[in-house]
């Protein structure tokens, strides 16, 4: 059975499987990728939907539903936020820069 765990994200490129709404990107400090950041997906009402830990390459990935999403990253080095609109099935990219 697939659990609800939030494993470390892999750095594998995200492929469009054709049936998922994927929100993905990297956590950055300046131009440098930040691994080990806690990245959460919030819905349009600001409600928590999921949380993952960014890979060493800074990558994170969520399987969402169509709509407007907010991605928030939390790390010892700082916090960051980005908005993304997923208008349908496919890969929707956004990077989150810590400050």
């Amino acid at each position, binding site marked *: 059975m697939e659990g*609800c765990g*939030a494993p*470390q994200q892999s750095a594998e490129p995200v492929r469009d499987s054709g049936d998922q709404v994927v929100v993905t990107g990297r956590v950055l400090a300046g131009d440098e990728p930040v691994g080990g950041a806690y990245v959460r997906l919030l*819905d349009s009402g600001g409600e928590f*939907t999921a*949380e*993952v830990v960014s890979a060493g390459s800074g990558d994170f990935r*969520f399987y969402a*539903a169509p709509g407007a999403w907010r991605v*928030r990253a939390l790390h010892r080095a700082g916090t960051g936020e980005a908005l993304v609109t997923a208008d349908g099935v496919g890969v929707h990219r956004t990077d989150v820069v810590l400050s």
Partner: protein
Amino acid sequence: MSRENVLVSTEWAERNLNTEGVVFAEVDEDTTAYDGGHIPGAVRLDWKEELQDHVRRDFVDRSGFEKLLSEKGIANDDTVVLYGGNNNWFAAYAYWYFKLYGHQDVRLLDGGRKKWELDGRELTKEVPVREATTYTASEQDLSLRAFRDEVVEAINVKNLVDVRSPDEFAGRLLAPAHLPQEAAQRAGHIPSAINVPWSKAANEDGTFKSDEELRALYEEAGLDGSRPTIAYCRIGERSSHSWFVLRELLGHQDVKNYDGSWTEYGSLVGVPVANPSEVS
């Protein structure tokens, strides 16, 4: 029940890493987290491999739990401090599980692995060696665990608290959004359930909100304190987190966790389902 009997802070944990009779255990589904670094001295509990029966959908039985804890070097009179990733979801699940089998003194590390990391505290890859014990478990305390028939009977009778995200509650998502949305069962929620996402009980750093905030949260959501409560999510670990809040922090007497949760309920034939996202 008060907070200091069931929760420890990261400061307390750091001060008690070498205290006799205190055992730290990291509980994760993704065990690579432990391998990459854990709290010094902490043993690992693997949620999937060690706490679940490998054939039936159920827990390891009483003798299996005794064997597991004995091998881990945990004794009946140890204070067990559980922590993990995912804002302590699986640690809370293990807490509930330890209570189910009658362990006396078990506590959660407030904020779990995330708070420990954000605090910049030490992590090690060194695996501790603990001498085996002879652990004795009780029969499962079924006053803490709800099964499907009881859940169906609880519709409009008891508090049903669905602790999943609003999108899962509304039938728009079948799983948390870090997992592919693939599942055979129906989407939606149990009729008469209120939706109080587990995340509303936690701060961003993973620590629990104050008792006052937590009381207000459930009051505003319409939880009737005079009635028994059953909490559920998708597989029973996020609802362990809310079960912990309701029973262990707020002191509600009759609170059960429905570990079958939506993966069971949403696959039952003939039971009522509410799905606001389906246009009739």
